[in-house]
């Protein structure tokens, strides 16, 4: 009996499923997933190795009992071992569910500040909506999941779940990503895997024949050139109905505080302004010429952004060990001045083969994010966009020395200089004197010991931790006055969080190790997991300051407000799984898991859920037309259960609620099924108690999600063209939800098991080699195309309940309508206009559109489909790749449009008919004739439930005769969601990489072993009808746009050296 290993000649990776036969005999076996095989043979025998993509090769058995067979392979076939849940390597052809792998090397050239952003378009069914904000996290949508409802994928590193903010790993350390799209793939992770998983497989050791290598990678990129920025007018300044005059900027003058931009036209007329001279005798402010000094303030304020990433990795491999250490520094400067972010990442991975039976493996990752200042963008006076774009006029110049100097002379640290003092801020005050710091340490790692008890049995013990602590601070200067802080006396706040989680696993695995009996190949494991979780957070804030610029809690004018939130949780799990193959015909995988979860009520906190998947490679046993080189069918079903946990968590409290509350990864208890009091400080800073308005439920059960999927993987023309199609269906529910109860019970909600939805979708991936690399021309062309679609429908709610409020799934919706069983869950309901039968707007006596008393359905939020196409060309040592991707369909209420119109800032308010009317507004003449009709006789009656007009036939109409000021019409019209609904269709030229790899002949015998240089670009073009916001940031269920920093193009250079 000899044992052997089949490896690729090219890179030493194991070759699975190679057919191994003894020449001249009928006995045979095949190599397992690690390339290992055993066969009865004696020295001198000849072994033949063959398989798909492997040319038959012969090896003669030597004198030892082992053999390494290095074979030549077709790389396309060799890529088909993928890493699945728990870090188990499987051949993709044996997998009965959809999994897609992305090579880490593909993502380190044209970089994103956030490593996960690089996955956009790379996987069918995975939507990555990158955030344009510094420290912003991308929204990840797998198969139509809804992050707002806590449906986020799990991050896993080398088989171990981690707590991730998507920043705590370095792209350079990643060998590959495996995207487990559905719960079938990730059932082994328990309920945390229900929304799929993003598995990160780190690089291990060195493949260099010397046994060590040093790799250096450097990227420098610039952000410049706007993709999407609100178009604003600079012809009229701040004010109301054409009137403005500055006295104190706090309402003392004519519309000089908290103004809209509906003021006088810039005509050089004399108007008292913030910097106009004041008569020392009378104290009256003189008029100075009213001109657009601040055209394009935002564009002039914003600077180019910068992204610099440097990483170095040292690795070595020997017979006994694989070692790798890396350090990565990621430095980013935002396009908003004085904002930046650094991330340091250290990673160390070891594998020690202590004895032939005992293997030790560990990986530790430390990352630190740090920034003294990053911007806040959310709607409000803390946002640059709010201040400059929406509500700021062109009457002041952002580069004016006075404005640039921030403070009023003699009032340094106390009073800023600006054109307005009630609501808005000098942008330089915001970026230079109002810093928001963020410091996060993040550590995760594991150590595992594998012991081979016998050739068939292996025991693994593994313990993993994931932990972070974060410190956030905000120093708000005097004269800053965001929402709720109108006294403008400064503040200091801190947000601290500490999370610790341990996962300890014990797993016994049996493999028959290539000893196929009766055609069965079996691998089975059983084990247990203990997950222990602890979290503690505090939020503290001053309530105004005594002394300016001293940011310490002891400097609080009113008593300091301090809050904390602590939680603990434990999950005990027993699980098992088995992969069984019968000859080449069929592969069956089953999993089962029991969880005991501490968040659920005792009695219902222990539950079981199974999964099963089946696949068969038809092409291995059925004679197919020659054009088909590979055909696999697969199907799977999986169930997951869990409950009363949340994947993310905000601050312990948010007592002074302006700005964006920071959300961190959590995955701990919500305690929402605990009936208790809240005890806020209400009157005169004294506590009051309020009992929960939600009825708790001691018999609550775990939620359930079941996934069905089926797929086909077909390849043509000798694998040159591959098509992978998946149909999936989630049957969600009964879930856990808070159902409405009659308020007359004293409660508003009851926590129950209910809500069932069905989400169905398709995913298509096409891989094609248009031109094979040929020695003669040196030219190659590969194409990758991904496409996906899904739709989710409400199928059940709760016994006796047939409808939900229209804001149940989309929280920003108007909730005064009902959605019923059978409806799509992503319908947008918003304020809508009364219309005649032929669709004309019905106006009131003032000539403005009448808004119906209840919201109406305006569209669906989810896209019709999502697509990406990637082309890769190679010519000798040059390569060129570029990717277009985008989404088609879906609706969005464009909040930027709404606010820029209502604020008088939208560029269209000075164009065409609106422009003429606006000039008349300024002259004091009502000239705007709004479209539609007015009521001639009768009056409208509305259905009390739907808000729709019930008596259109009894009402007669006439043309709208009432002329009015444009400002007043816009204020009504654009306040309604219906006026601001836009299509979310867009596409982007996402990335372009032009690469050159220095040939080894050029490097010669120098110490440099490999070198490549790439010119890269990201987000170079943006195609959409909506140009004031970047639609890329509003995927899936996002139905209402927020403010966003204008998005920009990014381009630069990437260098890669191996020593």
């Amino acid at each position, binding site marked *: 009996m000899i044992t052997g290993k089949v490896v690729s000649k090219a890179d030493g990776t194991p070759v699975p499923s190679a057919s191994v036969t003894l020449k001249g005999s009928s006995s045979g076996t095949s190599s397992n997933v690690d390339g290992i095989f055993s066969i009865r043979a004696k020295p001198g025998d000849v072994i033949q190795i063959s398989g798909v993509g492997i040319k038959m090769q012969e090896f003669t058995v030597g004198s030892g009992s082992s053999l390494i067979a290095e074979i030549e392979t077709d790389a396309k076939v060799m890529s088909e071992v993928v890493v699945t849940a728990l870090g188990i390597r499987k051949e993709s052809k044996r997998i009965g569910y959809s999994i897609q792998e992305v090579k880490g090397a593909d993502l380190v050239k044209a970089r994103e500040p956030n490593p996960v952003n690089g996955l956009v378009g790379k996987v069918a069914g995975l939507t990555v909506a990158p955030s344009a904000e510094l420290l912003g996290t991308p929204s990840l949508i797998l198969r139509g999941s809804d992050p707002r409802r806590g449906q986020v994928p799990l991050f896993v590193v080398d088989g171990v779940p981690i707590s991730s903010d998507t920043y705590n790993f370095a792209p350079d350390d990643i060998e590959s990503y495996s995207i487990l799209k559905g719960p079938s793939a990730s059932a082994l992770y328990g309920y945390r895997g229900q929304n799929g998983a993003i598995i990160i497989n780190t690089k291990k050791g060195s493949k260099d024949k010397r046994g060590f290598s040093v790799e250096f990678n450097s990227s420098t990129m610039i952000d410049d050139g706007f993709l999407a920025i609100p178009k604003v007018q600079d012809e009229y300044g701040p004010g109301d109905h054409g009137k403005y005059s500055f006295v104190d900027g706090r309402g003392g003058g*004519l519309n000089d505080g908290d103004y809209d931009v509906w003021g006088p036209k810039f005509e050089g007329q004399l108007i008292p302004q913030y910097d106009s001279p004041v008569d020392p005798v009378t104290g009256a402010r003189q008029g100075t010429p009213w001109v657009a000094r601040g055209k394009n303030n935002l564009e002039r304020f914003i600077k180019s952004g910068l992204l610099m990433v440097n990483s170095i990795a040292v690795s070595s491999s020997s017979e006994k060990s694989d070692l790798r250490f890396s350090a990565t520094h990621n430095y980013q400067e935002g396009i908003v001045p004085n904002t930046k972010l650094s991330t340091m990442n250290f990673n160390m991975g070891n594998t020690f083969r202590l004895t032939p039976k005992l293997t030790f493996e560990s990986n530790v990752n430390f990352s630190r994010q740090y920034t003294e200042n990053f911007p806040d963008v959310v709607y409000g006076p803390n946002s640059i966009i709010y201040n400059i774009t929406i509500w700021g006029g062109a009457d002041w110049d952002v580069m004016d020395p006075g404005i640039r100097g921030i403070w009023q002379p003699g009032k340094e640290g106390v009073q800023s200089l600006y054109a307005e003092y009630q609501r808005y801020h000098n942008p330089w005050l915001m970026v230079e004197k109002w810093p928001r710091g963020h410091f996060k340490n993040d550590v995760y790692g594991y150590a595992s010991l594998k012991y081979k008890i016998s050739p068939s049995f292996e025991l693994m013990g593994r313990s993993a931790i994931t932990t972070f602590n974060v410190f956030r601070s905000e120093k708000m200067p005097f004269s800053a006055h965001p929402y709720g802080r109108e006294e403008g006396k400064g503040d200091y706040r801190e947000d601290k969080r500490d999370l610790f989680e341990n996962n300890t696993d014990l797993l016994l695995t049996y493999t028959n190790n290539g000893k196929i009996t009766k055609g069965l190949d079996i691998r089975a494991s059983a084990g247990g997991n203990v997950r222990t979780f602890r979290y503690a957070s505090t939020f503290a804030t001053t309530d105004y300051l005594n002394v300016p610029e001293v940011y310490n809690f002891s400097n609080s004018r009113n008593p300091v407000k301090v809050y904390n939130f602590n939680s603990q949780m434990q999950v005990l799990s027993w699980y098992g799984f088995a992969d069984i193959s019968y000859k080449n015909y069929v592969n069956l995988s089953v999993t089962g898991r029991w969880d005991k979860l501490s968040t659920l009520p005792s009695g219902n906190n222990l539950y079981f859920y199974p999964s099963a998947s089946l696949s068969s490679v038809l092409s291995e046993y059925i004679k197919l037309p020659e054009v088909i080189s590979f055909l696999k069918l697969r199907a799977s079903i999986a169930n997951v259960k869990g409950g009363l946990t949340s994947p993310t968590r905000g601050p312990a409290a948010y007592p002074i609620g302006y700005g964006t509350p920071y959300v961190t990864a959590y995955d701990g208890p919500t305690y929402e099924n605990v009936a208790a009091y809240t005890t806020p400080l209400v009157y005169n800073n004294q506590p009051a108690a309020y009992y929960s308005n939600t009825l708790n439920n001691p018999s609550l059960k775990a939620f359930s999600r079941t996934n069905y999927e089926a797929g086909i993987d077909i390849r043509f023309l000798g694998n040159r063209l591959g098509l992978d199609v998946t149909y999936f269906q989630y049957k969600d529910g009964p879930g856990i939800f808070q159902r409405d*109860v009659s308020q*007359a*019970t004293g409660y508003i909600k009851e926590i129950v098991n209910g809500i069932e939805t069905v989400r169905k979708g398709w995913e298509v991936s096409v891989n094609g080699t248009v031109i094979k690399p040929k020695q003669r021309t040196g030219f190659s062309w590969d194409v990758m195309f991904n496409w996906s679609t899904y739709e989710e429908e409400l199928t059940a709610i709760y016994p006796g309940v047939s409808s939900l409020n229209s804001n149940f799934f989309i929280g920003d919706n108007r909730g005064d309508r*009902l959605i019923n069983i059978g409806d799509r869950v992503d319908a947008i309901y918003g304020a809508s206009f009364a219309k005649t039968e032929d669709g004309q707007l019905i106006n009131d006596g003032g000539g403005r559109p009448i808004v119906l008393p209840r919201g109406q359905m305006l569209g669906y939020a989810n896209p019709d489909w999502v697509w990406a196409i990637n082309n890769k060309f190679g010519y000798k040592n040059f390569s060129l790749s570029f990717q277009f991707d985008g989404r088609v369909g879906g609706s969005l209420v464009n909040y930027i449009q709404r606010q820029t119109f209502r604020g008088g800032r939208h560029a269209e308010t000075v164009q065409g008919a609106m422009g003429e009317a606006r000039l008349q507004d300024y002259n004091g003449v009502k000239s705007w004739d709004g479209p539609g009709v007015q009521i001639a006789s009768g009056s409208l009656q509305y259905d009390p439930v739907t808000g729709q007009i019930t008596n259109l036939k009894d009402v007669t109409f006439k043309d709208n005769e009432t002329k009015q000021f444009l400002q007043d019409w816009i204020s009504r019209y654009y306040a309604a969601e219906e006026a601001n609904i836009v299509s979310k269709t867009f596409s982007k030229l996402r990335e372009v990489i032009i690469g050159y790899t220095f040939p080894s002949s050029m490097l010669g015998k120098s110490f440099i072993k490999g070198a490549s240089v790439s010119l890269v670009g990201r987000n170079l073009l943006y195609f959409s009808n909506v140009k004031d916001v970047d639609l890329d940031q509003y995927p899936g269920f996002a139905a209402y746009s927020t403010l966003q920093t204008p998005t920009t193009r990014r381009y630069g250079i990437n260098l890669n050296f191996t020593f």
Partner: protein
Amino acid sequence: MKHNKILISIIVILFLGSCQDFEELEKDPNRPTSVTPGLVLNGVLNDMTERAWNNTQRWNQFNCCNYNYYGTQEYNWTSATLYYTTLKNVVKMEEEAVSGGAKALNPYAALGKFLRAYFYYRMTMIVGDLPQEEALQGLQELTPEYDTQKQIFGKILNWLDTANTDIAALISSGDNTLSGDFYYNNDLRKWQKAVNSFKLRVLVQLSKKETDADLNIKAKFAEVLSNKSKYPLFDSNLDNLQYVYNNQFNKYPINPDNFGFDATRYNYSSTYLNRLSALKDPRVFIMAEPAGEKLKSGLTPTSYEAFVGADPNQDLGDMSSKAGIDNGAGYLPGKYSFFNRKRFYSTYTAENTIQIGYPELCFNIAEGIHRGWATGNAEEWYVKGIQASHRFYGLKEGDNDVYFFKAGGSPTNSADYNKYTIQFNWEQYYAQAGVKYETGSAGLDKILLQKYLAFFQNSGWEAYFNYRRTGIPSFSENGPGTGNSGKIPKRFQYPSSELTTNSENLTEALTRQFGGKDDINLDMWVIK
């Protein structure tokens, strides 16, 4: 294999050792499940507070918003805000008192009855029938039946009687266990007065049912007036149930912080201000600023004609541009009177907000006597009411200093106000034909008008309820600014959640009241 066994044992021990008590882990360590009743009372009283300058006061037609972005005067009412969750806290408060060792008769139980009466009154007055007998039982009754408005009023009057008796008993037993009461600093004597004063409000609002034998309103009214020791009532503004603002934590809704947002975006309504100035009532100088345009046209700041409110039914665009016209240097903008800067914008505690007040009590007594429900002197109470309201605004006989803002000043800078001294003479004021009490319906109208003027920015919906019941003073409607097809509605719709959670009972209640339609323009029982 020996090593293996040791290894396995160690790991198994680690597993077991790390197991924690699951029942402990299920509990929320951050929130209490039991508290003292005083904490709950504090929460209930906070819920009870109705502030000044909110939408309700605009629908009372005291003031207008001229800035579309902030709001309108439109009456496009939809679902009502109900207070069952607060009533649930009343129940919890009573439970916490008993579980904390209190006797069955305790101050929380006694106040609990008053609070039930108070909140049910407020709820039924804006919608009609409501669940009461079967309400507040949580899971025990998830679909409570609706009681008729008449039944609810019967219950309210019973609760008020019991609350009065219970509080009297607690006072005589010297009970001092109440805490958490920021209104009366735990003084049960004051609460007893509030209970009975509120009872008179309820009885007066039932005036259309004065002949109803079951409710027996007239006799109940007379009984209260005839037995002052059994039914103590407010004796002066000092007894008012009123919300007192403070500088740091509970600022008056309009104050120096929001001067720049609000001072010119809200103006007076003609329904209120023009009536006040027509009566040459000096409260106008304390409440308002003279309209800039009137001063520019030559009127003196202390002439009543200079005080003008905007008609709330007008098109908002018109009001907005009229409120914003430039009157040039030295004059405030606009054609309308704004809120007096000195009174409302120079501090954080402009005035207390009355919830149940002495001036209203006087007018309620005057109305009851005028209607013949009890014997007494209606004019005496009418005069007391006006004078109590005058006192609330600090108006005194003789010289009164009033302050108007200098255009372009800062509201917190006392130098930015012009001071004027005005003369007030009660006899002269009262002698006016529009003020002097008379018998007959004209006299009742005067009582109702003065009651309305005294309700300015206080007592929640009372001004509207009185208008709805009596039509006095007539509210402005039928314009583009009114909304709701030009009509002032009579009620709010039921919460839309009732439709999905309790629809059978809701349908029954709608059928018996409004022909099955949840229509805001139909009359409920109490005003039929």
